[in-house]
């Protein structure tokens, strides 16, 4: 049709205008302020409306929406058995590269999906991917508004209230360390969750919104994008003894190392052993193969990464993606190229370990059942449909499903690297067992009485 072609011509002209920032096919590499970010996400949605959905988890202090673009074959719904994944960037407003990378990633996934990229298609069909390019849009605006090329190390880092969001989360590390010593729960440590969050006056609106988000969606795997260095950082961030540097392993240390490596190996800068530190006096002794334990690098209390692991089922790592927190716009293309494969590969890690359903003998799902792995002092729970995903490194494990009022079932599993091994549990409730035993008893009694004739 005539109008279409006119549009094409105009569209082409528009693209030509915009392409001063450099393009990779269909992505244009430039910084997006809030409005531009919003429009970029809307464009992705318009291009791929059947596999994407935009939603907001709340507003920043200054009223900007905390936008999330979700990608899945059935956006808006949790399909039972489909793992949930998230990327969050720019929680420090002046750490801008992650923000942009997630916008490019959204465009990339949509383009690749439509172009028939099988890996991407499979990923989108089997995962529910949530992308939040900016958790701190207010901070970004402040940072981006600075005149000149060189941006200050701190301006725009915290939210509009001056709160460092990555120190603002409830500090569950302290609790877990106590429980380790004295016994206690090893998971889901935020008691009276909703109340604690809503009544806590110290939490920034952005923090609150994210906590609600984590509670509402059964995320399995996540990463938190930062800048200022180049490394993949894994739990725990806070040291056990309180010292400034100390390797602080979590129960899933093996898995976390594997996850962090799965990101770093595809990033040529991150995995470069010969790379010089970002700044001359930086101590990167803890970096190995592009990964580091949080506590070993430096202690961070109240961070979002550990909060995820200790309050929910979600495993999160922290990705530092650039020496420069807010680099020049014309370097964005190269950051994308460095990180594109890593970003996709890390999403694929969600399909590892064991997964399945926990149901009762009638086939009804049992939610909030516990899945524990022998030898790993960290349990996860089943979601509303009874589905669970337990990330595990390759090996042989005994996996147990427990629920109050039910008899525990233990299964042995051999876990490969990927894909996830399906292990379902049918739990017998205690009542049922009692009933069974009673019947058995009755049968025996009957038999006895018949035999003995009384």
């Amino acid at each position, binding site marked *: *049709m*005539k109008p279409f072609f006119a549009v094409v*011509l105009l569209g082409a002209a528009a693209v030509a205008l915009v392409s001063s920032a450099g393009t990779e096919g269909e992505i244009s590499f430039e910084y997006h302020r809030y409005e531009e970010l919003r429009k970029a996400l*809307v464009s992705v949605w318009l*291009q791929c409306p059947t596999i994407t959905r935009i939603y907001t988890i709340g507003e920043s202090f200054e009223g900007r929406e905390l936008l999330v673009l979700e990608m899945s074959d059935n956006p808006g719904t949790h399909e039972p058995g489909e793992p949930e994944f998230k990327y969050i960037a720019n929680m420090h407003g002046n750490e801008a590269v992650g923000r942009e990378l997630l916008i490019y990633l959204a465009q990339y996934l949509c383009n690749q999906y*439509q172009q028939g990229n099988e890996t991407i298609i499979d990923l989108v069909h089997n995962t529910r991917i949530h992308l939040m390019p900016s958790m701190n849009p207010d901070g970004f605006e402040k940072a981006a508004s600075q005149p000149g090329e060189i941006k200050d190390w701190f301006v725009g880092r915290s939210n509009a209230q001056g709160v460092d969001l990555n120190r603002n989360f409830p500090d569950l590390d302290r609790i877990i360390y106590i429980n380790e010593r004295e016994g206690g729960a090893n998971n889901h440590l935020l008691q009276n969750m909703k109340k604690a969050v809503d009544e806590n006056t110290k939490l920034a609106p952005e923090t609150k919104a994210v906590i609600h988000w984590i509670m509402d969606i059964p995320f399995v795997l996540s990463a938190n994008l930062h800048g200022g260095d180049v490394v993949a950082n894994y739990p725990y961030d806070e040291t056990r003894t309180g010292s400034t540097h100390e390797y602080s392993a979590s129960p899933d240390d093996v898995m976390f190392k594997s996850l962090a490596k799965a990101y770093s190996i595809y990033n040529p800068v991150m995995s470069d052993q010969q790379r010089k530190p970002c700044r001359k006096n930086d101590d990167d002794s803890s970096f190995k193969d592009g990964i580091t334990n949080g506590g070993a690098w430096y202690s961070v209390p109240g961070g979002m990464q550990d909060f995820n692991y200790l309050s929910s089922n979600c495993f999160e790592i922290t990705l530092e993606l650039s020496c420069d927190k807010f680099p020049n716009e014309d370097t964005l293309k190269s950051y994308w190229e460095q990180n594109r494969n890593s970003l996709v590969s890390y999403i694929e890690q969600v399909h590892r370990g064991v997964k399945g359903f926990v149901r009762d003998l009638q086939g009804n799902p049992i939610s909030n059942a516990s899945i524990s792995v022998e030898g790993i002092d960290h349990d996860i729970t089943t979601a509303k449909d009874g589905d669970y995903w337990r990330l595990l490194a390759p090996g042989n494990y005994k996996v147990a499903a427990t629920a109050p009022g039910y008899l525990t079932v233990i299964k042995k599993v051999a876990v490969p690297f990927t894909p996830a091994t399906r292990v379902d549990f049918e739990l017998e409730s205690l009542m049922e067992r009692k009933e069974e035993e009673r019947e058995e008893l009755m049968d025996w009694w009957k038999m006895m009485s018949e035999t003995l004739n009384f």
Partner: protein
Amino acid sequence: MASKYAGLFVLFQLLALSVVSQISAFPTPTAASTDDKPVYNRQLTEERPVQEQIAEADSVKAAVQSAESRRPSSTKDSESQQDLDDLTVLKSLADEQKSKESTEVPIKKDMQYVPDESDSTKSRRLAEDYDSTKNGMDYGKYQDDPESFRQVDGTPLTAEDIVQKIANKIYEEDDRGVFDRIVSKLLKLGLITDSQAETLEYQVAEALQDLITKNAKNNEIEDIESNDQETRGEQDDKGSDTNLDTWEPPRRRYNDEEEEEENDDVVEDEVDRDAEEEEGDTGDNTWDKDTEEGNEVRPEDGLQDLQYFPNFYRLLRSLDSEQDTQERETLITIMKTLIDFVKMMVKYGTITPEEGVSYLENLDAMIAMQTKNKLGKSLGPPDVPGPNGKILDEDDNTKAEAAKMQKEYENLKDSTKEEQPSTETNQPGKSETYLEAIRKNIEWLKKHDKEEGKDDYDLSKLKDFMDQQVDSYIEKGIIAKDEGDTIKRIYSSL
């Protein structure tokens, strides 16, 4: 095939001469006809008595019908025989045979169509009808349509016989392609020149018109399923008066139709007009798709498509009473013929899109003027905001994009429709990005559905879904109200 269209021009030009005086690209009829062979001229100038003509036509028809029984060989046979026949035709043409009353002019035994006029053509369903863009160019379809140029007794036909024979064939088969094929063969063999072909067309048109008129007298309504410009052109230029041998300016034609009881009830059940195409978007293969869509939509009388001719539309409206139905039908048919014809011409590069557009615009203006003059009344409020507004928009767009259209001929596979960007003035950058994104989605959907073997994706469902989503996003503050409106507008224009 340019000659054929040149011929069409001839026909059409005579009709539209007074309307399109400023379009100098159209060839003038006089130039063409003076070059023609004497035999045709002679036939032209001679006023043959009506009865004679009718009788001739009758006899031809009878011969055709009788020839039916002796049918059917394969296409190949018929084609080779046609070649032979063509040679004979050539001979006869070259000899400049005199006109004389033709005797039996049987069509050869291998004719396959049934010329029963009370039949299929009338019961033909709407969807099959009148689609010039679909069928007009498809010559392969007609290969099993044999013509012969021999009389029963083997004597070569006169030129006049040939003309009659062709006309009959066309009429009975409702297929202008008959003529096309014959002429193309002749031209290919170098046996006739272009100008001769033009004249031949003209002749055939006349003869055909005679046939039509005669049969119209016998039957109330006849559907002529000519998917072909020329036939329509022929009908058009003849208007309702069967005895007109000369071209009449369009106002006279309209006048006739308005004032006389229309007995030339050629009801073309034309269905496939896409409204946007009226602005001259005629160089577009997407007509096919559009025409199909149009078929499904089939408005009452197909009036929707004509709404871009507000004066014509009003004229139709004024003919709303019972007894005017036939006139209405005819008017609609003629109008659609004209439009189609213009589209064809643009498509084949005979005229530029701008010319086509301006022609159509002038046509409508002329209708208004003539209606006023002749009927002594105006067609209604001169400025109806809706249709006029639209026309203005499309004017601007078509003029702006007419040039672009020509460049895009090759890319016509893609039938994605988009709202014209010139109508979005406030946020050009953003709306273009959104347009791009929507376009990519539509493209992908089409490709995706094709690969999966589904039929065309359900655009209306998608549109509803998007509308809904847009509303919810506006509510949540994810998109601004004006952006949402833009997006909705884009989707509703698809």
